C-alpha cells in the first residue's frame, strides 16, 4: 500500500471536524469529571456514615468496570427503560462519570494533605467554616492537585476514540467512516495518531508550564 497525499487532502477537512469534536468532548467531559469528582469527594469525606459508604461503593463500582461497558450501558441499555441519550451526551456522561471517580481521589488526597494544625489555627483565629475553606484550606490544597488533574484530562482525551463504539463522530469515528468507505486504513489511522500526538504534546507542555508556575509561586 502506497501513501496517497491526494487521499490525505480529501479526508483532512472531515478529520479536522472530528478533531474539533474530540477536543470539545474532552473539555465538556473534563468539566463534568471535575464537578462529579468534587461531589464524590465531599460525599466520601462526609461525617454521615451512610453517605460515605454509598459514595465509596458507587465510585469503586465505576472504577472497577471498563469504560466501554459503561458506555454500552448508557447508550444501548438505557433506551430499554425509556432513557434515550444522544451519542454525544451518553459519551460525555460516561467519560465524566468514569474519570470523576479518579478525580475525586485527587481532591480527597489534596484536602487530607493539608495538616490538621492548619484547621486548628484557623479555628483559633476564629474564622468561620467557609473562611477556613476559602482562605486557608483550598489555597493550600489546590496547587498540588493541578498536575494529577491535568494528567487525567490528557488521559481522558486519549480515551475519546472509544466513543466511536457508540457512534460518536469524533476524530476516530470520522477516520473509521472514511476507512470503511474507501478500504484505505493507512492514511486515516495515521492522521488520527498524528492528531492525538499533536494535541497531547501541546497540553502536556501547557500543564508543565502551569506546574512550574505553581512551583515558583510556592517557593
Amino acid at each position, binding site marked *: 500500500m502506497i501513501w496517497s497525499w491526494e487521499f490525505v487532502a480529501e479526508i483532512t477537512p472531515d478529520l479536522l471536524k472530528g478533531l474539533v469534536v474530540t477536543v470539545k468532548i474532552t473539555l465538556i467531559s473534563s468539566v463534568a469529571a471535575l464537578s462529579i469528582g468534587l461531589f464524590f469527594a465531599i460525599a466520601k469525606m462526609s461525617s454521615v456514615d451512610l453517605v460515605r459508604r454509598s459514595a465509596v461503593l458507587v465510585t469503586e463500582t465505576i472504577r472497577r468496570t471498563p469504560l466501554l461497558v459503561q458506555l454500552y450501558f448508557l447508550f444501548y441499555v438505557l433506551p430499554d427503560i425509556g432513557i434515550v441519550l444522544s451519542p454525544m451526551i451518553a459519551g460525555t456522561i460516561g467519560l465524566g462519570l468514569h474519570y470523576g471517580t479518579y478525580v475525586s481521589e485527587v481532591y480527597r488526597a489534596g484536602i487530607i494533605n493539608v*495538616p490538621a*494544625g*492548619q484547621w*486548628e*489555627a484557623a*479555628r*483559633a*483565629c*476564629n*474564622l*468561620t*467554616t467557609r*473562611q477556613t475553606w476559602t*482562605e*486557608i484550606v483550598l*489555597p*493550600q490544597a489546590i496547587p498540588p492537585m493541578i498536575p494529577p488533574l491535568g494528567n487525567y484530562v490528557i488521559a481522558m482525551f486519549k480515551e475519546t476514540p472509544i466513543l466511536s463504539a457508540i457512534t460518536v463522530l469524533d476524530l476516530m469515528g470520522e477516520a473509521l467512516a472514511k476507512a470503511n468507505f474507501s478500504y484505505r486504513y493507512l492514511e486515516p489511522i495515521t492522521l488520527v495518531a498524528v492528531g492525538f500526538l499533536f494535541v497531547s504534546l501541546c497540553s502536556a507542555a501547557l500543564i508543565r508550564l502551569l506546574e512550574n508556575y505553581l512551583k515558583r509561586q510556592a517557593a
Partner: protein
Amino acid sequence: MGLHVASRAPDCQPIIEFRNVEKSYGSLKVLEQLSFSVKAGEHLALIGPSGSGKTTILRILMTLESVTAGDVIVNGVCLNHEQRGGKQVPSSEAHLRRMRGAFGMVFQHFNLFPHKTALQNVALAPVLTGSLSKAAAKERALQMLENVGLADKAHEYPSRLSGGQKQRVAIARALALQPKILLLDEITSALDPELVEEVLNVITNLRNETDMTMLLVTHEMGFAKDFSDRVLFFERGKIVEEGPPSEIFLSPHHERTKSFLRKIIAAGHRL
C-alpha cells in the same frame, strides 16, 4: 462619683472554671473528674509527664476538643452548653465562635499559614472576623510584629523564617484579636535550644506588661518557675499537686511530683 467602684471583676470571680470535666477517646480517659479555676490575670503553669492531659485542657478551652462530661465556664458563661428555649443544649457553632473570641492560642508547631506572609498571618483574623478594617488591621499587625521584634520580616513567608521567628509571628497572630486569655501549648518544644530564649523573652514581656490571663503548658521548668503565679502538676488526667512555684519546685509534697522533677533535672533541664 463612682470612682471607687472596681471596674474589674472581683478577684474571687474566676475567669475559667473546670467543673468535674471528663474527656475520653474511646476507652482512653484523658481527663478524670477534673475541677480547678483560674483567676483573671493569673499566670498558670501546667506541668506533668507527656499524656497527662495538660494540652487537652488548652485544646478544650480553644474549642478544638469537646468535653465528654462536666462543664467548662469561661467569664461566667458555659463553654460546652448554651441555653436555648429554657433548656441546656450542646453549644452551637455560633456560641463557640462567640466564646472563642476570649482566647488566643500559640501551638507547639507554630501552625502558621504557609501561603501568607508574616504580616498577612497576623492581620488575617481581625480582617476576616470583621473586628478591624483592612488598613487598621495592617497597622495593628505591623505594631504586633514590632513588639515581637520582627517588623523587618513582615513581608517574608514563613518558609523563610527561623523556628524562633515563626513562633514569634505565631504569638503576634494569637494576640491580634486582643484575647483576654492566652493559651501557650509547649511553644518552645519544637525549637532548637539556641532559639528558645528569644521566644521566652517575648512571653516574659507579655507577662509583665499586660493583664492577660495566661495558661502555659511547658517542659521548661526553669521558665515555668519564673513565669507562673501558680503551678498545677498533672498526672493521668488528674491534678496531683498545686501551689506557688516556690513550693512546687523547691519543696514539693507529693512523691510523684518529686520523682517527675528529678527525672526532668536528670534529663538536663535547669530549674
